[in-house]
């Protein structure tokens, strides 16, 4: 059970030096003290000491945080602003309640995605009415303000999940093979790589891992998940996708809804424990940071980000040439929450033909922030544009990142700025290079 932090102790080390003002994306976009991490810490402290009432404005200041932890990385005193914000949101949820919109997402939509996925093919079929595809990409632009998504680009839905896609099955609610793929969780079937087939035939495998897919990757970017599976298989890793996994719970935690978070956590722990694995892998930075922070003690298998895991085992670099100028966007929940900076870059550099151009201000957040971008779409867009301009400055034709949330935000941002640059997950690029070997 995740318990609230000792707020008093978390607040004390803030010496109000203001160093966090120099990095907070929300402050840099808005410019007043109450939007700076220091301001938020001050407000929470005043709330705790009863010096201020939980007014709407105060609530907004506490909600208007991306939980990106840029301030945490910057803070010389080691103040965990994100923990303070989460605890404060929980307190505020008890007083002012959670907004209707957020409730819909964190209490109803996300916890039930597993069941709702049966409707995926229906949505996939009618999505053209709601949105139009942009530039032959995998994205579509809503024709009007879509509830909960606003006007951002959305991935084109195929009706697939990672499991159905990886096993070469049909989308839901379809064939026996796709249902079987979901049930057994073991990825096998038509799309199996030669290496995976070889491991099946007794070739020494490096490890057996449980793949925690995360909601956005599983339903919005299943092809990315398939590529994660493929890259792992190419490295002689057996991949299992535990069937009963649900949302990692971060959106619930971020909304101050600890009960739903704990429920999600319990369900996931059960799902992950139900199969034997040497490691739990995720390729979503936000899921990864949540698992590492709130699940780790409860699981026997260690938790790894995809890139981290590849370099922890005996990694076989891909040999297919990919002549591309790429830049890499560090997801906050990877760089700052998990301290993973070098691994994705090292993997990118292993791809023949690829040129990596570093972006200035790699610590700058993309502005997605999960439900933040639903609640504050304009602010999320402003922050996103700043980031995207930095990325465009590199002249790269491909922006690679390691989190589906960032992918969604960057694709919208680049499109809004008229950039033709593609957004890819690291796994997609690696998989493409492996495939190009043949």
């Amino acid at each position, binding site marked *: 059970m995740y318990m609230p932090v000792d707020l008093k102790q978390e607040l*004390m080390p803030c010496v*109000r030096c*203001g160093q966090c003002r120099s990095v907070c994306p929300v402050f840099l976009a808005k410019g*007043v003290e*109450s939007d700076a991490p220091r301001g938020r810490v001050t407000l929470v402290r005043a709330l705790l000491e009863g010096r201020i009432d939980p007014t709407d404005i105060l609530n907004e200041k506490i909600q208007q945080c991306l939980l990106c932890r840029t301030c945490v990385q910057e803070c010389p005193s*080691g103040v965990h602003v994100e923990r303070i914000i989460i605890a404060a949101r929980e307190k505020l949820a008890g007083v002012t309640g959670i907004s209707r919109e957020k409730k819909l997402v964190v209490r109803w939509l996300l916890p039930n995605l597993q069941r709702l996925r049966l409707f995926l093919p229906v949505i996939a079929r009618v999505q053209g009415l709601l949105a139009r595809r942009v530039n032959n990409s995998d994205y579509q632009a809503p024709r009007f303000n879509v509830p909960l998504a606003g006007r951002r680009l959305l991935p084109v839905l195929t009706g697939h999940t990672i499991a159905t896609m990886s096993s070469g099955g049909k989308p839901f609610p379809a064939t026996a093979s796709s249902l079987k793929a979901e049930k057994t969780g073991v990825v096998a079937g038509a799309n199996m790589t030669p290496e995976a087939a070889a491991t099946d035939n007794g070739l020494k495998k490096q490890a057996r891992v449980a793949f925690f897919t995360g909601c956005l990757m599983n339903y919005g970017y299943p092809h990315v998940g398939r590529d994660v599976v493929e890259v792992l298989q190419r490295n002689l890793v057996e991949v299992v996708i535990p069937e009963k996994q649900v949302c990692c719970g971060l959106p619930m935690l971020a909304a101050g809804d600890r009960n739903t978070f704990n429920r999600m956590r319990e369900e996931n722990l059960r799902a992950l424990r139900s199969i034997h694995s040497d490691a739990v892998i995720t390729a979503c930075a936000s899921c990864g940071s949540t698992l590492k922070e709130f699940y780790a003690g409860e699981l026997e298998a260690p938790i790894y980000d995809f890139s981290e895991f590849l370099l922890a085992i005996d990694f076989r670099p891909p040999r297919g040439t990919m002549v591309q100028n790429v830049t890499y966007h560090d997801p906050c929940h990877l760089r700052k929450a998990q301290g993973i900076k070098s691994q994705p870059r090292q993997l990118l550099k292993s791809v023949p033909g690829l040129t990596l151009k570093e972006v200035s201000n790699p610590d700058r957040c993309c502005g997605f922030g999960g439900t933040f971008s639903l609640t504050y779409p304009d602010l999320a867009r402003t922050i996103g544009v700043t980031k995207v301009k930095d990325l465009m400055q590199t002249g790269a034709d491909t922006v690679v990142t390691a989190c589906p949330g960032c992918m969604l935000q960057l694709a919208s941002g680049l499109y809004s700025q008229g950039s033709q640059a593609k957004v890819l997950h690291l796994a997609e690029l690696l998989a493409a290079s492996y495939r190009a070997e043949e």
Partner: protein
Amino acid sequence: MLPADLIRQVEKIAGLENVFTDEANRLCYATDSSLLSQINNWVPDLVVRVTNTEQVSNILKLANQHRVPVIPRGAGTGQCCGAVACRGGIVMDLSSMNRILNLDLENLQVVVQPGIVHADLNKALAAHGFFFPPDPGSTKMCTLGGMVVFNSSGQRSVKYGTTKQYILGLEVVLPSGEVIVTGGARSRALKSVAGYDLTSLFTGSEGTLGIVTRIRLKVLPIPEKRGLVVAFFDKLEASGQAVIQVFRRRLLPSAIEIMDRTAMKAATMYKPELELPPAEAMLLFEVDGSPAEVAYQAQNIAAICQQFANQVEWTDDPKRLIELWTARSVVGAAAGRVKPGATRVYIGEDICVPVIRVPEALRRIQELSEQYNIPIVTYGHIGDGNLHAAPVINTYDSAEIEKVKQLGDAVHRMALEMEGTTTGEHGVGLTRAGYMEEELGPALQVMRQIKRLLDPLNILNPGKMALDEN
């Protein structure tokens, strides 16, 4: 509470979106980093964010009519309760006025707005090979406006001096709302002795005489190379001797920093990989200039230190330079971590004593630490005698707060008794106002007369710097 009419007029001047009267926004402007502001609840009546000189002027005129205090504020990183509305009124946030107006580098100068952050300015200058030398520890967040009115400085003041040496002219809005330019109304000259030196008067005025809205600054070319000498001393006094010898030998490092045993311990607790040897004090000498100059200075300083220290190292390798600086650069942050469940507070944090008496001051601070039973981590700029003492307490414990206030007082009194000052670079504000009679003597009366002349209604940052007779 301010009259509704006044609020409406401020809204008209600055725009509705830049005026804040709600509790949450105002509360965020009630503190700077001083302990004093933390333990009081000096919430301003209104916060206004300004974007140009005209707005500043109009708001000051209005404030004069209504006799409402106005407190200018940059980033609120001050440590002496300077930007705090201890008598209510309007806090004016200038940090959005953050543009570089003119890079006049052929003339070795730049013109900036007061809200520009120090590091942002130096980043822009570095692209052209220049820099603004004063280097406060708060570089990433403090504004140039704050630096001007506090006459801030940093480690490199040994060689490069303080902010005032670089201010060529200022645009200042007087409390009446009138706008003047010091240092020559249209001048781009690098020096001028025309008239009273009003630039110097406003520099260091702590926001009590006028609001700075434009700054003309002298800049210098970035030195080609830097080098560093690090030395560890068995005896605190020996470190002082080494510094004196360096000056006697006519060497001029850009910075000389000292960390005493407490500071070394704090840095090691925070970053065990530092592996500092056991010692009573550690000195860091930074030298800069041409490669030959750097090598010459560093080698000579190292040789002098050899006579007094038990371990000496010098380097001009940029990578090693960063490694060696680490101990000093983390100590501020590390201080708060020496005692679990406690944090550092800013009080008595900025005394400055004669260089020769630094070791004595360090010893006496440790005696005070024992006497009050409060851990203190001390480090500072031995090159100019400026010491930063960081007491560490549980800020939820009112008894500890009382005790640390007494400790701060003792540190300030010790500095005065040692022919020093209560503040080397952070300013007087409210925290040190009580010492000004003693520290300044009859000169304080002259300051009060100047204040009365420029601000007869006492609306600009009232209560600070002991300018009020009562």
